[in-house]
């Protein structure tokens, strides 16, 4: 099965280091994943876990002082680690597209929608204006914007937040990318609009047969859209696997702890206390050793101080990084 999969992006041991006044900050400390055509990978974690820097590192958009290293970052069977900025920019425009959280700041307020949509196409694909316009209208229709032609002449501020995010998605699709990286694409939107946009993304992904990496802090979104899940904590993957496996039998104490924090209508009893994960994310400066979750973990022992970060692999691709055996982890979850 896995041999047939058409892997679009394959990342091995990605690290990001940022020098700060107190020493070296390690926001991403070696994460690996791959995503195939037609597949959705969700990277989930709380603020400060390194998920956004991961996406920026993939796109080559890290802040200037940050250093990226990896064993490999293969995109469409080509290692993109040593690409020049110009080649990377071309790749970003055409093959890899990004959708950001805040559509208002990612659209240029002084250009019309048609300007911005067509510009990408004209720059990278062909200089035929009529073609570009046709593609823009086609895609606006695809993202569910009715009367696309009249929308083309409008400016971003004339659109509501939901429409702007739809335009952003259309823009990302202009050159027919193979991979879409969406960083919190619905966080700034209302719940009803959020559901619509996620629905749309899933639909388009199937339509255009793209790979998608969705980065979010919202486990609800992950459960609904992901094929594969990667739970990040303190710059490392603590648990990964097929979506059903991770949510049905969460093995890492962090994952199960997070799931207990969320009120679910019909499941959690109204008014009763919710589960909590006490404490905060550790400081990521300097030499880091052992399991970084140990100061918040109810199962932590002395062993966790020096534990090597090796994952326990299960048969179905489910893996987690913890001293607990899978049986013990599920048992503690049930208790």
């Amino acid at each position: 099965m896995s041999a047939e999969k058409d892997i679009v992006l394959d990342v091995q041991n990605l690290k990001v280091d940022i020098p700060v006044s107190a020493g070296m900050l390690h926001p991403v400390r070696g994460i690996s994943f791959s995503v195939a055509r037609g597949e959705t990978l969700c990277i989930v974690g709380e603020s400060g876990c390194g998920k956004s820097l991961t996406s920026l590192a993939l796109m080559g958009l890290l802040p200037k002082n940050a250093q990226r290293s990896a064993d490999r970052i293969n995109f469409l069977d080509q290692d993109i680690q040593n690409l020049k900025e110009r080649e990377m920019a071309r790749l970003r425009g055409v093959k890899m597209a990004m959708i950001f959280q805040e559509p208002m700041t990612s659209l240029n307020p002084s250009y019309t929608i048609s300007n911005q949509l067509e510009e990408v196409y004209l720059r990278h694909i062909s200089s035929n204006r009529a073609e570009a316009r046709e593609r823009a209208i086609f895609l606006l229709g695809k993202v569910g914007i009715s009367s696309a032609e009249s929308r083309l002449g409008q400016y971003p501020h004339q659109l509501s937040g939901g429409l702007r995010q739809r335009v952003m998605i259309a823009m990302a699709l202009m050159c027919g990318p193979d991979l879409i990286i969406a960083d919190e694409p619905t966080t700034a939107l209302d719940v009803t609009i959020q559901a619509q946009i996620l629905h749309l993304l899933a639909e388009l992904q199937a339509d255009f047969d793209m790979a998608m990496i969705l980065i979010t802090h919202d486990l609800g979104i992950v459960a609904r859209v992901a094929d594969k899940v990667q739970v990040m904590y303190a710059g490392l993957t603590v648990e990964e696997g097929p979506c059903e496996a991770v949510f049905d039998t969460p093995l890492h104490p962090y994952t199960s702890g997070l799931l207990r924090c969320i009120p679910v209508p019909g499941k959690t009893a109204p008014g009763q206390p919710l589960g909590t994960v006490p404490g905060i994310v550790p400081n990521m400066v300097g030499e880091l050793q052992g399991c970084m979750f140990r100061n918040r973990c109810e199962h932590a022992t002395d062993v966790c101080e020096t534990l090597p970060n090796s994952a326990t692999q299960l048969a179905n691709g489910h893996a987690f990084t913890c001293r607990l055996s899978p049986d013990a982890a599920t048992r503690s979850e049930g208790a």
Partner: protein
Amino acid sequence: MIDMSLSPLRGQQTAEEILEPSPMSKLRRRIFKNHSFMIGAAILIVILVCALVAPLLAPHDPYELDLSKRLINPFWHDKKTDAEFMLGTDKIGRDYLSRLIYGAQISLLIGFSTILISGVIGTALGVTAGYFGGRVDMMVNFIINTRLAMPVFLVAMAAVVAFGASLHVVILVLGLFLWDRFAVVMRSITMQARDLDYVKAARAIGCSTPHIIIREIFPNVLSSLTVVATVEMANAILLEAALSFLGFGVQAPTPSWGLMLNEGREYMFFSPWLLALPGMGLFLLVLAINLFGDGLRDVTLERER
């Protein structure tokens, strides 16, 4: 009245450490790392100390003239020098070093008094406009625009002609005219601060409007205020020098750097140091103020990031 029985549980839930150093210590660390701030502050302190202890420092009375000792060269010349007058004398035999030191006094006095007056006017107008908005804002904007339509230099000259030239008139004219930047900057910053939730929280607590403006908003705009103040101070010092140079500012025999430039003008080719020394003084002072202001902006803006 409060049942504390649940407290231990809550304490356990927030076994969080305070990782961040206090904002003060962070600010201090950043200040020491900021070269432009440190250099600017160092020069400024030297000039400030010179001005403050001028009577102790100056070897001579800056007004005492001795026509027999006219135009003595400073120490680096090989002829017509006098060990008593390190930096020489001017065209009527006054000690140039003493006049330079007392000139710093005048420049700083002008700078500080001007920003005091203009800062109070501009901040009051700007903060009021920014906080209340609407009609008040429109009115203040009108006043700002009226002020901007008036050329400072011409009005200053006219005022000097009308009221006579003196230090007080110069300070008053500059103070009453250089508040526009204060008003514009304070207005926009107050507008941003006004919409933040802590202001709303203060209103919901029942704080009076003056309390909110003075105690809640003002501390948050203070850093921008000081940055504008440095810019305006440099501006005021240069304007005074220009006015004095043209004869519309501080009058002789007061040792103002601008006036000294004017007096040395005729000797430009034979005794260029008469121009160079006060020019250098002005240059150093304004440079120091600007470096200080730039550094201050970097240091405080970083805090807000």
